């Protein structure tokens, strides 16, 4: 009974936080200058302003659009380009003077460093979804930035950046997915309490139970031996379902590409690394620092083995990031064919292929969640294995010398 009150209390707490974040509001904005081009409207807000404004017929740079779509942003763009509709999200900056909060709506959809937001005597601009301290005066393109031309002739800002802890689109989706997971699984837990353990599961309970049992038996139990898997099951379940729900949410067109963001996969991989290192027994470390090989090879083997500790979680990070990002880029590129060729005739082919890739992505969403969890369990399990033969060899080798 008391746990039930706690659960709903926590749910309400999170719900409250979540909605507070979005009280920054929905904003529809009229840009200062309007365009009449419709077909290429998609590119309008992304390309550099100078190239677009005087051109009679704008060319779409699909590569840039594709990359931008898989990146994070400070507001949640829903639709529209001339009159974009987006959900403003909180911007939280750690500046030299402390923390600064404001709504991303204050940038008025600008991502070219032209709109300055002034807070507590500090001035900020948004350039391609990175927030910089604004310069005192605008440059020749109207950007409050000092730019520097790189080797390829592309200008990039050299202004200082505050630390950006904003609730970006990815963070918002992360919180949203966490909320869904909490509500879903606490309600399933209540269902078990209510119907008792002897009756068969029903509804969402019966849908999730096989997945939970699969993670417990096929992922945790079969890879972490010696009956020590039980304390890792909650962690593995959380990893599996958090990745799965965000992989699936990522397939919805207006959603964020959270699992295809390297920061997200980086954190999960770091946690895997920490859990693996703290679960490791002396055989694991012995294998790295005293490999069962002649001492002469140690200068080569020890750095290699030591590197191996990091390459495994690194591969985890890259695998999930690359798989999800690649899938999204392919879908966007296929749809982009219509705009690149500027012909409706391409659309059946483009849509057909995009549909095919989307269906494939549904499979990939499940598969990548499975693979990440499986490999995490495998790393933990291999760090805990008792290498009896190897330890004996090691003892023999050390006795020799």
């Amino acid at each position, binding site marked *: 009974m008391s746990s039930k009150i706690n659960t709903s209390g926590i749910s309400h707490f999170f719900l409250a936080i979540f909605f507070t974040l979005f009280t920054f509001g929905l904003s529809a904005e009229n840009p200062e200058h309007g365009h009449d081009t419709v077909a290429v409207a998609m590119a309008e807000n992304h390309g550099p302003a100078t190239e677009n404004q005087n051109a009679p017929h704008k060319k779409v740079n699909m590569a840039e659009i594709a*990359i931008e779509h898989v990146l994070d942003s400070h507001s949640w763009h829903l639709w529209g380009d001339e009159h974009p509709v987006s959900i403003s999200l909180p911007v939280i900056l750690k500046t030299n003077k402390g923390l600064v909060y404001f709504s991303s709506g204050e940038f008025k959809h600008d991502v070219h460093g032209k709109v300055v937001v002034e807070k507590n005597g500090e001035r900020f601009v948004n350039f391609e979804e990175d927030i910089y301290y604004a310069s005192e005066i605008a440059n020749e393109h109207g950007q409050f930035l000092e730019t520097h031309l790189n080797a390829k002739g592309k200008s990039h800002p050299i202004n200082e950046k505050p630390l950006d802890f904003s609730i970006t689109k*990815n*963070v918002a989706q*992360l919180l949203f997915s966490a909320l869904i997971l909490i509500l879903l*699984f*606490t309600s399933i837990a209540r269902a078990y309490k209510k119907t008792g353990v002897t009756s068969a599961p029903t509804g969402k309970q019966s849908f999730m139970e096989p997945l939970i049992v699969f993670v417990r038996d096929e992922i945790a139990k079969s890879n972490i031996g010696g009956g020590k898997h039980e304390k890792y*099951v*909650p962690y593995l379940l959380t990893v599996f379902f958090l990745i799965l729900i965000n992989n699936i949410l990522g397939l919805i067109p207006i959603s964020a590409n959270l699992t295809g963001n390297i*920061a997200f996969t980086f*954190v999960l991989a770091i946690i895997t690394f920490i859990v693996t290192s703290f679960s490791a027994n002396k055989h694991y470390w012995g294998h790295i620092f005293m490999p069962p090989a002649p001492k002469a090879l140690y200068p080569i083997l020890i750095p290699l083995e030591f590197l191996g500790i990091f390459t495994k979680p690194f591969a985890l990070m890259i695998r999930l990031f690359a798989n999800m990002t690649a899938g999204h880029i392919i879908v966007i590129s296929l749809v982009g064919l219509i705009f690149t060729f500027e012909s409706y005739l391409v659309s059946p082919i483009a849509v057909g292929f995009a549909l095919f890739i989307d269906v494939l992505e549904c499979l990939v969403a499940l598969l990548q969640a499975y693979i990440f969890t499986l490999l995490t369990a495998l790393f933990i399990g291999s760090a805990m294995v008792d290498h009896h033969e190897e330890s004996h060899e090691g003892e023999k080798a050390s006795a020799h010398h």
Partner: protein
Amino acid sequence: MNLFILGSLITPGIGLIFWTGVVFLLLVGILGKFAWKPILNSIKTREQGIEDALKSAERALNDMRELQSNNEKIMNDARAERDAMLKEARETKDSIVAEAKQKAQADADRILSGAREQITAEKNAAVAEIKNQVAVLSIEIAEKILKAELSNDDKQKALVTNLVKDLNFN
């Protein structure tokens, strides 16, 4: 291709790292306490229950088998006992019948021999009586004949001789 944007694709942002870390750890804690623990415990309890039920079913089956074999054994014993009883009864009957027969035979023999003895005795008595009667009759006849014949001495002598000759019994 904007290399700057490509670079940001593989540069992890500090904000998302921070929030992912915070949210993930909170999520592990909250789900661990309020979801995974009760769910996993319930599943485990159910699995334990199913296993117990299966085991007890197997045990019941074994018990039943044992009972069945016991029953069969009892049946076999009963059958054997019945056969033995039948056999004994048959033997008893046979012996009784044989005894009765023997006894009857003995009785019959005894009765027969008794009857035979009686008959012999009766016959002897009858013969003795007849002898007596014959003797009486003979005396009477002899008397009459004597009365008649004894008129003459010769005739008397011849008659007596003849009579004695004829009286040759057995």
